[in-house]
Protein backbone atom coordinates (compact mmCIF):
# COMPACT_ATOMS: atom_id res chain seq x y z
CA UNK A 1 0.00 0.00 0.00
CA UNK A 2 1.52 3.27 -1.08
CA UNK A 3 0.68 6.12 1.23
CA UNK A 4 2.56 8.91 -0.51
CA UNK A 5 0.61 9.11 -3.76
CA UNK A 6 -2.93 8.77 -2.49
CA UNK A 7 -5.35 11.37 -3.77
CA UNK A 8 -8.15 12.85 -1.70
CA UNK A 9 -10.53 10.49 -3.52
CA UNK A 10 -8.33 7.50 -2.62
CA UNK A 11 -8.25 8.48 1.02
CA UNK A 12 -12.00 9.08 1.24
CA UNK A 13 -12.73 5.74 -0.47
CA UNK A 14 -10.27 4.00 1.85
CA UNK A 15 -12.05 5.50 4.87
CA UNK A 16 -15.45 4.54 3.47
CA UNK A 17 -14.44 0.97 2.70
CA UNK A 18 -12.99 0.54 6.18
CA UNK A 19 -15.96 2.05 8.00
CA UNK A 20 -16.88 -0.49 10.66
CA UNK A 21 -20.34 0.86 11.52
CA UNK A 22 -22.14 -1.85 9.54
CA UNK A 23 -19.80 -4.63 10.66
CA UNK A 24 -22.67 -6.74 12.04
CA UNK A 25 -24.03 -7.13 8.49
CA UNK A 26 -21.00 -9.09 7.29
CA UNK A 27 -19.45 -10.37 10.50
CA UNK A 28 -19.91 -14.07 9.73
CA UNK A 29 -19.54 -16.22 6.63
CA UNK A 30 -23.26 -17.09 6.78
CA UNK A 31 -24.26 -13.42 6.69
CA UNK A 32 -21.91 -12.72 3.80
CA UNK A 33 -23.30 -15.69 1.86
CA UNK A 34 -26.82 -14.46 2.58
CA UNK A 35 -25.94 -10.97 1.33
CA UNK A 36 -24.41 -12.37 -1.87
CA UNK A 37 -27.48 -14.61 -2.38
CA UNK A 38 -29.76 -11.60 -1.87
CA UNK A 39 -27.68 -9.59 -4.34
CA UNK A 40 -27.87 -12.35 -6.96
CA UNK A 41 -31.65 -12.64 -6.43
CA UNK A 42 -32.15 -8.88 -6.72
CA UNK A 43 -29.99 -8.76 -9.85
CA UNK A 44 -32.06 -11.54 -11.44
CA UNK A 45 -35.29 -9.79 -10.45
CA UNK A 46 -34.08 -6.46 -11.87
CA UNK A 47 -32.95 -8.20 -15.06
CA UNK A 48 -36.32 -9.89 -15.37
CA UNK A 49 -38.15 -6.61 -14.94
CA UNK A 50 -35.92 -4.90 -17.49
CA UNK A 51 -36.56 -7.68 -19.98
CA UNK A 52 -40.27 -7.38 -19.30
CA UNK A 53 -40.12 -3.63 -19.82
CA UNK A 54 -38.12 -3.54 -23.05
CA UNK A 55 -38.66 -6.85 -24.77
CA UNK A 56 -42.09 -8.02 -23.70
CA UNK A 57 -43.49 -4.50 -24.01
CA UNK A 58 -44.93 -4.69 -20.54
CA UNK A 59 -46.83 -1.89 -18.87
CA UNK A 60 -44.08 0.59 -18.03
CA UNK A 61 -45.46 2.24 -14.89
CA UNK A 62 -45.61 -0.66 -12.44
CA UNK A 63 -42.44 -2.18 -13.92
CA UNK A 64 -40.49 1.03 -13.36
CA UNK A 65 -41.95 1.36 -9.85
CA UNK A 66 -40.94 -2.21 -9.03
CA UNK A 67 -37.45 -1.62 -10.43
CA UNK A 68 -37.14 1.53 -8.33
CA UNK A 69 -38.19 -0.41 -5.23
CA UNK A 70 -35.63 -3.15 -5.90
CA UNK A 71 -32.82 -0.80 -6.82
CA UNK A 72 -32.36 0.55 -3.28
CA UNK A 73 -31.86 -2.88 -1.59
CA UNK A 74 -29.63 -3.86 -4.54
CA UNK A 75 -27.43 -0.81 -3.88
CA UNK A 76 -27.36 -1.53 -0.15
CA UNK A 77 -26.34 -5.17 -0.80
CA UNK A 78 -23.63 -3.95 -3.23
CA UNK A 79 -22.30 -1.62 -0.55
CA UNK A 80 -22.32 -4.32 2.12
CA UNK A 81 -20.34 -6.71 -0.10
CA UNK A 82 -17.86 -3.98 -1.00
CA UNK A 83 -17.31 -3.04 2.62
CA UNK A 84 -17.10 -6.71 3.66
CA UNK A 85 -14.19 -7.05 1.23
CA UNK A 86 -12.68 -3.75 2.40
CA UNK A 87 -13.05 -2.35 -1.09
CA UNK A 88 -11.06 -5.10 -2.74
CA UNK A 89 -12.57 -4.28 -6.13
CA UNK A 90 -13.58 -0.67 -5.54
CA UNK A 91 -10.29 0.80 -4.39
CA UNK A 92 -7.55 1.68 -6.83
CA UNK A 93 -4.64 -0.72 -7.06
CA UNK A 94 -2.23 1.73 -5.41
CA UNK A 95 -4.41 1.81 -2.29
CA UNK A 96 -4.22 -1.96 -1.80
CA UNK A 97 -1.40 -3.73 -0.01
CA UNK A 98 0.40 -6.79 -1.38
CA UNK A 99 -2.06 -9.32 0.10
CA UNK A 100 -5.08 -7.38 -1.14
CA UNK A 101 -3.57 -7.04 -4.63
CA UNK A 102 -2.93 -10.79 -4.75
CA UNK A 103 -6.47 -11.47 -3.51
CA UNK A 104 -7.94 -9.13 -6.14
CA UNK A 105 -6.04 -11.00 -8.88
CA UNK A 106 -7.30 -14.33 -7.51
CA UNK A 107 -10.89 -13.07 -7.36
CA UNK A 108 -10.73 -11.75 -10.93
CA UNK A 109 -9.21 -15.02 -12.17
CA UNK A 110 -11.94 -17.09 -10.49
CA UNK A 111 -14.68 -14.79 -11.77
CA UNK A 112 -13.20 -14.96 -15.28
CA UNK A 113 -13.23 -18.76 -15.15
CA UNK A 114 -16.84 -18.80 -13.93
CA UNK A 115 -18.07 -16.38 -16.58
CA UNK A 116 -16.23 -18.31 -19.29
CA UNK A 117 -18.20 -21.40 -18.30
CA UNK A 118 -21.40 -19.35 -18.17
CA UNK A 119 -20.72 -17.92 -21.63
CA UNK A 120 -20.09 -21.42 -22.99
CA UNK A 121 -23.37 -22.60 -21.41
CA UNK A 122 -25.21 -19.63 -22.95
CA UNK A 123 -23.80 -20.39 -26.42
CA UNK A 124 -24.67 -24.07 -26.12
CA UNK A 125 -28.14 -23.14 -24.88
CA UNK A 126 -28.70 -20.82 -27.84
CA UNK A 127 -27.43 -23.45 -30.28
CA UNK A 128 -29.70 -26.08 -28.73
CA UNK A 129 -32.65 -23.67 -28.89
CA UNK A 130 -31.74 -22.98 -32.51
CA UNK A 131 -31.91 -26.69 -33.31
CA UNK A 132 -35.35 -26.92 -31.71
CA UNK A 133 -36.72 -23.71 -33.23
CA UNK A 134 -34.78 -22.04 -36.02
CA UNK A 135 -35.54 -18.44 -35.05
CA UNK A 136 -34.65 -18.87 -31.36
CA UNK A 137 -30.96 -17.81 -31.45
CA UNK A 138 -31.84 -14.58 -33.24
CA UNK A 139 -34.73 -13.85 -30.87
CA UNK A 140 -32.91 -14.66 -27.64
CA UNK A 141 -29.33 -13.63 -28.48
CA UNK A 142 -29.86 -10.04 -27.31
CA UNK A 143 -31.32 -10.77 -23.85
CA UNK A 144 -28.89 -13.64 -23.25
CA UNK A 145 -25.94 -11.44 -24.21
CA UNK A 146 -27.11 -8.69 -21.86
CA UNK A 147 -27.65 -11.19 -19.04
CA UNK A 148 -24.16 -12.64 -19.53
CA UNK A 149 -22.68 -9.14 -19.63
CA UNK A 150 -24.37 -8.25 -16.32
CA UNK A 151 -23.14 -11.49 -14.73
CA UNK A 152 -19.65 -10.84 -16.12
CA UNK A 153 -19.73 -7.40 -14.50
CA UNK A 154 -20.99 -8.60 -11.13
CA UNK A 155 -19.29 -12.00 -10.80
CA UNK A 156 -16.07 -10.57 -9.27
CA UNK A 157 -18.16 -8.86 -6.58
CA UNK A 158 -19.98 -12.10 -5.75
CA UNK A 159 -16.75 -14.11 -5.72
CA UNK A 160 -15.06 -11.50 -3.52
CA UNK A 161 -18.05 -11.50 -1.16
CA UNK A 162 -17.94 -15.27 -0.83
CA UNK A 163 -14.17 -15.33 -0.31
CA UNK A 164 -14.12 -12.59 2.34
CA UNK A 165 -13.01 -13.88 5.71
CA UNK A 166 -13.95 -13.11 9.27
CA UNK A 167 -12.26 -10.23 10.99
CA UNK A 168 -9.22 -11.33 13.03
CA UNK A 169 -10.26 -11.58 16.67
CA UNK A 170 -9.44 -8.47 18.61
CA UNK A 171 -6.39 -8.95 20.70
CA UNK A 172 -7.47 -7.94 24.17
CA UNK A 173 -3.94 -8.15 25.51
CA UNK A 174 -2.62 -5.66 23.04
CA UNK A 175 -4.08 -2.20 23.06
CA UNK A 176 -2.65 0.61 21.00
Amino acid sequence: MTTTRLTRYDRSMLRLMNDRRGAAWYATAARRRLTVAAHVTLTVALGGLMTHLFLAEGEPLWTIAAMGALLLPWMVATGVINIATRGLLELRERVLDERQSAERSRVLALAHRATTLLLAAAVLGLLAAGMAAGHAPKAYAGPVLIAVLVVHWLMPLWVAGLRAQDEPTEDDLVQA
Partner: protein
Amino acid sequence: MSEQVHNRLAMVRAERKVSRQSLAEAVGVHYQTIGYIERGQYNPSLDLALKISKFFGLPVEALFSLEPFRPLTDEVYGRNQP
Protein backbone atom coordinates in the same frame (compact mmCIF):
# COMPACT_ATOMS: atom_id res chain seq x y z
CA MET B 1 2.76 -23.71 -4.76
CA SER B 2 3.26 -22.06 -1.42
CA GLU B 3 5.17 -23.27 1.57
CA GLN B 4 3.94 -22.47 5.03
CA VAL B 5 6.09 -19.80 6.64
CA HIS B 6 5.85 -19.99 10.41
CA ASN B 7 6.04 -16.81 12.43
CA ARG B 8 6.14 -15.46 15.93
CA LEU B 9 4.53 -12.21 15.05
CA ALA B 10 1.55 -12.43 17.42
CA MET B 11 3.79 -13.28 20.36
CA VAL B 12 6.33 -10.54 19.69
CA ARG B 13 3.57 -8.03 19.04
CA ALA B 14 1.89 -8.91 22.35
CA GLU B 15 5.20 -8.75 24.17
CA ARG B 16 5.94 -5.28 22.76
CA LYS B 17 2.31 -4.16 23.28
CA VAL B 18 1.89 -3.14 19.67
CA SER B 19 -1.59 -3.27 18.12
CA ARG B 20 -2.22 -4.73 14.68
CA GLN B 21 -3.32 -1.31 13.52
CA SER B 22 -0.13 0.49 14.56
CA LEU B 23 2.11 -2.25 13.17
CA ALA B 24 0.13 -2.18 9.92
CA GLU B 25 0.49 1.59 9.66
CA ALA B 26 4.21 1.39 10.36
CA VAL B 27 4.87 -1.14 7.60
CA GLY B 28 2.27 0.21 5.13
CA VAL B 29 -0.28 -2.60 4.96
CA HIS B 30 -3.90 -3.13 5.96
CA TYR B 31 -4.36 -4.25 9.56
CA GLN B 32 -6.17 -7.37 8.35
CA THR B 33 -3.00 -8.40 6.53
CA ILE B 34 -1.16 -8.54 9.87
CA GLY B 35 -3.95 -10.79 11.19
CA TYR B 36 -3.69 -13.03 8.11
CA ILE B 37 0.08 -13.36 8.57
CA GLU B 38 -0.33 -14.21 12.26
CA ARG B 39 -2.92 -16.86 11.45
CA GLY B 40 -0.63 -18.36 8.80
CA GLN B 41 -3.12 -17.56 6.05
CA TYR B 42 -0.77 -15.30 4.17
CA ASN B 43 2.98 -15.49 3.65
CA PRO B 44 4.46 -11.99 3.52
CA SER B 45 6.80 -10.94 0.75
CA LEU B 46 10.48 -10.60 1.63
CA ASP B 47 10.03 -6.85 1.51
CA LEU B 48 7.22 -6.92 4.07
CA ALA B 49 8.96 -9.49 6.28
CA LEU B 50 12.04 -7.27 6.38
CA LYS B 51 9.96 -4.18 7.17
CA ILE B 52 8.25 -5.99 10.06
CA SER B 53 11.59 -7.26 11.37
CA LYS B 54 13.04 -3.76 11.15
CA PHE B 55 10.06 -2.36 13.03
CA PHE B 56 10.74 -4.71 15.93
CA GLY B 57 14.52 -4.37 15.62
CA LEU B 58 14.93 -8.11 15.24
CA PRO B 59 16.60 -10.29 12.61
CA VAL B 60 14.07 -11.67 10.14
CA GLU B 61 14.76 -15.25 11.26
CA ALA B 62 13.63 -14.32 14.79
CA LEU B 63 10.15 -13.68 13.41
CA PHE B 64 9.82 -15.92 10.35
CA SER B 65 10.95 -19.47 9.71
CA LEU B 66 10.29 -22.34 7.34
CA GLU B 67 10.42 -24.69 10.36
CA PRO B 68 7.93 -24.47 13.24
CA PHE B 69 9.29 -22.39 16.11
CA ARG B 70 10.13 -24.11 19.38
CA PRO B 71 8.35 -22.67 22.41
CA LEU B 72 10.33 -19.71 23.70
CA THR B 73 10.70 -21.23 27.17
CA ASP B 74 12.33 -24.29 25.58
CA GLU B 75 14.77 -22.06 23.76
CA VAL B 76 15.57 -20.04 26.87
CA TYR B 77 15.81 -22.93 29.32
CA GLY B 78 17.16 -25.45 26.86
CA ARG B 79 14.65 -28.30 27.04
CA ASN B 80 15.53 -30.73 24.27
CA GLN B 81 12.45 -32.96 24.25
CA PRO B 82 9.43 -31.76 22.27
